[in-house]
């Protein structure tokens, strides 16, 4: 699957990770272009339904990026997100997905390089996993 280009949905929190992604862009860091960013106010705003909807529409991987533990703009949003995503990963595993298709990472506003590194690594992981196992519905 050398020519497989994954489609990845990335949720970035407004206060840290989106600024981090912006920083990566301003610094002109090279990274793969397989991801689309959706900005949310907090990583805890990412309802599990959003993630399941992304997978059901054919996303090969989903990334949720938030503030570092202790740094959440809303004090404890990222702790909630962390539990939710861990739970969702169990569920994806039960469905038969490789849980590595869903990634949660902390990227602060100043960490453009970490954003680049996270995205690059995740794209490599998803490339190795191959396209989403979800079959298109017949009708």
């Amino acid at each position, binding site marked *: *699957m050398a020519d*497989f280009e994954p489609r990845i949905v990335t949720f970035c929190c407004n206060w840290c990770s989106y600024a981090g992604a912006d920083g990566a862009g301003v610094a002109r860091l090279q990274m793969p272009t397989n991801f689309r960013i959706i900005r949310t106010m907090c990583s805890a705003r990412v*309802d*599990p*339904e959003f993630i*399941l*909807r992304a*997978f*059901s529409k054919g996303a090969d991987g989903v990334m949720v990026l938030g503030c570092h*533990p*202790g740094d959440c703009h809303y004090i*404890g949003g990222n*702790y*909630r997100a*962390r*539990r*939710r995503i*861990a*739970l*969702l*990963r*169990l*569920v994806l595993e*039960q*469905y*038969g*997905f*490789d849980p590595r298709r869903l990634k949660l990472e902390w990227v602060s506003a100043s960490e453009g390089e970490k954003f680049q590194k996270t995205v690059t690594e995740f794209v490599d992981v998803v*490339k*190795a*996993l*191959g396209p*989403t*196992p*979800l*079959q298109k*519905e017949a009708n």
Partner: protein
Amino acid sequence: MGFLDELFKKKEKVEDVAANVANKAEKAVKGAADAAKAAAYDGEKVTHELQKADLGELLPGAPKGGKINLAIYWAAACGGCDVSILDVNERILTVGDMANIVMWPVAADGKEKDIAAMEDGEITVSIISGAVRNSENEHMVKLLRQKSKIVVAYGTCACFGGSPALANLVADGKEEILNYVYTKTPTSADFQKTYHKDAPVIPKVSCKVPEGELTLPVLYDTVKTLDQVVDVDYFVPGCPPQQETISQMLKAVADFAYAGVALPPKGTTIGITTKTLCDECPRKKANARITEFLEPYQVNVQDGICLMDQGILCLGPSTIGGCGARCTKAGQPCRGCYGPTADVQEQGASMFTAVASLLPILDDDPICDEEKIVKIVSEIKDPLGYFYAFTLGKALIKKAVKETGGQ
């Protein structure tokens, strides 16, 4: 091998059960003290007496324009919905005055050929319970749709897939299911060993006998909800629908049959409220954080306090109200049979959100690693089966998938 094997293996942990019994005895003592605390906390005694069923008025004989035609059919369902229709109490005796029951497999004589001989639209109302799981289900619901003015998806299986839809999680589909049921379960394994030593016998779609060919309906790989197969006018959720819900449905039909009152708009879900089950539940929430999840048999369930506060996983926060919170009033957690609220599609996803917020934030949360978090959420056993017990047919991802490993 597959999913079913694993499921049964989990159940065989007998020593775990023994440990739980010991635990329970210990907790019973603790429970008494907690109950006293609960009474003090609540201040008022919550009674769990169910309200007397509303008997309502009997239907007034035959409608002016003649009796309407009523068909009741079950597809992939347990039959509980058919029985629940009797819940309209003595009014059921007068339903026969209002309507000809042209088909009701469990109670009346109408056959498929009688329905096929009818004109299109000759049946006023078809009440169909159950999911669509085989070719016979599909043929019958399509036939009834063609012959009916109104089709009602009655019960959770017809509305959301219900528990039959959990079969969609068996990765190898119907082959694995048939193989398991007819060769692996203890009774069938024994039978196959005794009578069919060389090759196990598994039901086939068609079979030649001296008298001709015998056929069985084709089992499908995917269990579908009724509205994924035919156009549905109304939805009546519940496993089974509660008496009030059925009465509302009967009233709508009777008003239409006797007085020509307009029916609710197409697509209406009958018998639900606009809020979640928690809104109807009389238990009080103390917003306790929980770290272990229990089944009701493992604790002495206290009256008046939210079941979640007591560590019992209850699907109330993600389930639409309308049932009157019967289960939680009786000390049993909500399993979610009335389906998701109107604003979301995914009942399970709503529940992940709710549960994750109930887990406490720990002192070492800023520094702990992912393994610890996984350990915390792993307290919930089988989240997919538990949170989607009734609604997998309508979930965003409806079937098990298989990773190909990049091939």
